[in-house]
């Protein structure tokens, strides 16, 4: 599977990872090379085989529906890049 620079640009848009032209160029070569190695999987016979998502059983863990202490607002805001009063500040959503 060969990926073009345009396809890589599209993936970077989907992933919301900005990239320079040079990065897109380098990435298209490297991703194509990696995808080529994935072709080996097509040889594996998986007819009637279920997919494994986790190697352990994953169960929803429930705790009692009781109020208990949570992080304080100061703690939550301690790592926020920008905040104002009781809000985290973000850039404009609508242009």
């Amino acid at each position, binding site marked *: 599977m060969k990926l073009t620079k345009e396809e890589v640009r599209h*993936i970077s848009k989907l992933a919301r990872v*900005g990239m320079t032209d040079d*990065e897109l160029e380098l990435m298209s070569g*490297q991703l194509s090379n990696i995808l080529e190695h994935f072709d080996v*999987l097509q040889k594996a016979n998986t007819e009637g085989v279920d*997919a*494994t998502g986790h190697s352990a059983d994953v169960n929803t863990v429930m705790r009692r529906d009781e109020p208990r202490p949570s992080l304080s607002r100061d703690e939550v805001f301690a*790592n926020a890049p920008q905040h104002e009063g009781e809000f985290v500040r*973000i850039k*404009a959503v609508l242009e």
Partner: protein
Amino acid sequence: MNVVGMTLEEAGALLRTKQATSVELTLAVLDRINAVEPKTRAYVTVTEDLAMQQARKADERIAKGQAGPLTGVPMQLKDNISTKGVRTTCSSKMLSNFVPVYDATVARKLYDAGAVLVGKGNMDEFAMGSSTENSAVQKTHNPWALDRVPGGSSGGPAAAVAAGEGFYSLGSDTGGSIRQPAALCGIVGLKPTYGLVSRYGLVAFASSLDQIGPMTKTVKDNALVLNAIAGNDPSDSTSLKVTPPDYTKALTGDIKGLRIGVPKEYFVEGMQPGVEKCVRDAIKMLEKLGAKLGEASLPSTPYAMAVYYIIAPSEASANLARYDGVKYGYSAKNASTMWEAMERTKQEGFGPEVKRRIMIGTYALSAGYYDAYYLKAQKVRTLIRREFEEVFKKFDVLVTPTSPSVAFKMGEKTADPVQMYLNDVFTIPANIAGIPGVSVQAGLSDGLPVGVQFLASHLQEETLLKVAHAYEQAAGWHKLRAKV
């Protein structure tokens, strides 16, 4: 006090018999860190004040006769394990100033046992890599040869333990990130059964594969640390509901009659002859100790690499979507809209390997390719898991090389991601199946450590450590130390 050659077990005994205090021991380790860090660069953060505070508390506990095996003994944690009030960077620009507001369960358990945290270990950015050259902070050097890599992604923890900059460390292993650096630095590294150790507070890379485990100088030390960190945690929905045994009790040295399989698919072309020789010698030693050796086969092994490099990046692309520059972490300046800010935050905040994996994952999960890549990989994962289940009906433990090569020169493999990925070819299958694996030193090739890997079925850590310990004690390679 010579802390370089000392094991965790010996350090603990020294404290409990009052031949040294935790404050003295901690100062000795901090001195050692100061002396060798310019060469090894195994630490991202050194927590001198916290360490001294914890050491004084430990000494009080020892005076009251309430000391356990870990009480007062200095240790390190990999920098993707959250520590309240102590910077946890994942060796990334994205989290360079991140200070967690809570402790990971493993950190809390070690603190409760009286452990002393001397600092956080360098790693590949977000645990993605096999050489610790992807760290955005610094490159860690192998204490056995400073021009070589320590392996990765837990290269900082491996180098720190090998260089005597702390008695043990915790690493994380998604595709071999504990066992491969342990092998390259000549120490013991255990990846426990998936779900045996809580992942709460571990910065997520690939959630269905990640597991935290101990990195130590000996198998006994490893069992001591595992005793402290294993067990069910309601804060982790994948945590197993089991009551772990005392793992040190399994270390009898007696492995007579145990069935040990040698999987033929793990002795592949391209493996260094010096590595193969050490592993073959280890197999002979096991036979001498009375184990019953036999050939095993895991025919789907050649698919493991592809399965891993689809599943891990897919999960990573979802896990790393949270770094949007809004709630915490790096945030790009000079963007006018939210979308632009997000794109630029990831562009500037992530390094090349992390971007590469987000891209592979996004592609593998995208409409049109999901069935061909992600779903197919999950199905082959089932095949790999089933083969292990079958093979463990015939054998108690499998023995394999840990890594196809000894530590390689820095920069040697950075240009070709696929070549770099091949380092994990022997460790990846255990993560895919969720089984435990341990790497133990098996000698030297050209003066560099070689690792032998033991694998066992789910929750068979006792048998695994029993075999590893018997081999280690008989072979004696664990007594060698890096001369840094």
